């Protein structure tokens, strides 16, 4: 954070529009999963119209005093007609219960999916929820000469998220999208320090798992005339705001041209102590290839880094994991990969597990449970083979690969089974 102190007053970002947020320069990790080397900011905004005042988002609870001091420098509580909640995560809604007490007449505008979160948020206060209005794309609020128009942009990065566009001024209040954890009291992107790394780091850790939703949001945002982007964290983007929209489109688009675009892709990861699980992997891969329409890649986890594997996994249609069982568990490199997937979207991908074992062979079932926990589908029961696979067992591996390929390509034959036969 720059050394000069920010006053307690609001900062004008456009005529009649003020930043009333708070700076948190000493925060060093956010939500446990993100490092914040120079802290963060919680951006909240006030928009004044002829007939009312709108507050857009609030701040983390322990910074409520800063927020209220700045708010009081530009508006009275009885002037507040509108509270917009673009995102209800506690770092943006922490001061909301108190704001509702001070401005009980205000109507709250939020996305449909935010309603239950609002109720959960206000539970401890025991107070009656305020009047709230669920809104979606193109719904508007007239502040008198100024119009707030909503954009339904869910999953950026919670189900409740939305953006709010100040039509006459071309200002876009975006919640977490286009934000970053970067604390600098100069506030604006053309005056703060170099925050490019923070901007991309934030995308990579917060938005990347939702890249399809990012692209949906960009499609709504790109046609707008935008003079300034006001995110809920980090610098306010008043210089070349459209560049940041373009950058988000680039970040959310697959990095390399997909040579296998007309085929499904199956990535087989394995690790092997004595070559038995490796032989299983090779047979599985050969079986999958034999079906046609599936491009198979084989990777030994001993020869790679988790970041590369994460990229591969994000792009794959199907994933098979092979691990021996050592001390009644899958081995650590498998868990390292399977615990590093929170930054990509793997929901609904096809998953499978296999492995050789000596005594009890727990690894396969444990991996399958993890794949299901990651919201992957596991339609084919995994394969456990005791020690050295013989020709018949390698044929079973091949068959597993064929079944996976059929599921990927929609060639699976209809089956009828009784529930009693399911494990």
């Amino acid at each position, binding site marked *: 954070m720059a050394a000069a102190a920010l006053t307690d007053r609001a900062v004008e970002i456009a005529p009649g529009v003020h930043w009333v947020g708070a700076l948190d320069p000493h925060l060093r990790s956010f939500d446990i999963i993100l490092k914040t080397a120079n802290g963060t900011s919680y951006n909240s905004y006030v928009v004044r119209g002829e007939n009312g005042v709108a507050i857009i988002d609030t701040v983390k609870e322990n910074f409520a005093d800063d927020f209220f001091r700045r708010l009081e420098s530009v508006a009275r509580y009885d002037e507040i007609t509108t509270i917009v909640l673009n995102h209800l995560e506690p770092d943006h809604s922490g001061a909301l219960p108190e704001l509702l007490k001070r401005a009980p007449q205000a109507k709250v505008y939020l996305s*449909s*999916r935010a*309603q*239950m979160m609002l109720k959960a948020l206000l539970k401890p206060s025991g107070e009656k929820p305020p009047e709230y209005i669920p809104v*979606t794309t193109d719904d508007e609020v007239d502040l008198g000469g100024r119009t707030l128009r909503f954009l339904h942009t869910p999953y950026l990065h919670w*189900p409740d998220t939305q953006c709010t566009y100040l039509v006459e001024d071309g200002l876009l209040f975006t919640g977490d999208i286009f934000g970053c954890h970067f604390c600098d009291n100069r506030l604006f992107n053309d005056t703060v320090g170099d925050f490019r790394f923070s901007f991309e780091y934030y995308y990579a850790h917060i938005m990347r798992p939702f890249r399809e939703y990012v692209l949906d949001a960009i499609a709504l945002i790109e046609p707008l005339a935008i003079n300034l982007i006001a995110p809920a964290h980090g610098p306010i983007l008043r210089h070349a705001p459209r560049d940041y929209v373009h950058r988000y489109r680039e970040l959310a688009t697959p990095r390399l041209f997909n040579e296998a675009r007309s085929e499904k892709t199956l990535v087989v990861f394995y690790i092997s102590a004595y070559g038995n699980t490796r032989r299983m992997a090779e047979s599985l891969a050969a079986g999958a290839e034999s079906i046609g329409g599936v491009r198979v890649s084989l990777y030994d986890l001993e020869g790679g880094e988790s970041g590369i594997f994460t990229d591969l996994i994000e792009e794959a249609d199907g994933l098979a994991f092979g691990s021996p069982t050592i001390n009644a568990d899958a081995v650590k490199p498998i868990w390292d990969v399977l615990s590093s997937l929170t930054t990509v979207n793997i*929901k*609904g991908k096809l998953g499978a597990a296999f492995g050789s074992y000596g005594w009890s062979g727990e690894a396969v079932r444990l991996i399958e449970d993890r794949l*299901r926990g990651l*919201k*992957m*589908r*596991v*339609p*084919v029961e995994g394969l456990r083979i005791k020690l050295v696979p013989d020709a018949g067992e390698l044929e079973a591996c091949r068959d597993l690969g064929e079944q996976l390929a059929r*599921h990927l390509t929609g060639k*699976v*034959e*209809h*089956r*009828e*089974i*009784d*529930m009693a036969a*399911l*494990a």
Partner: protein
Amino acid sequence: MPKAKVTFQDIGVTVTVPAGTRLIEVSEKVGAGITYGCREGECCTCLTKIVSGGEFLAPPSILEDQVLKDNMAPRGHRLACQAQIIGGDIVVKPA
């Protein structure tokens, strides 16, 4: 015990189940593409399209109805963690 049939269209599997079974109890075991989050009817992760046979599912509870409404679920959709099969033939697929 009365039986019912539920077909998971995305994976081409029909399962004969006892009446009273919830979709969640079957779909994961057969590896259907319906995925789960909270498993308690709150998060809407398991939103499922009922392709046919919706009348053979027990009506949604007040809670499920509210969650479907809050999440703007289209008609003919249910939460797989809540929907209980009461008989007949039902065809489902991930939303």
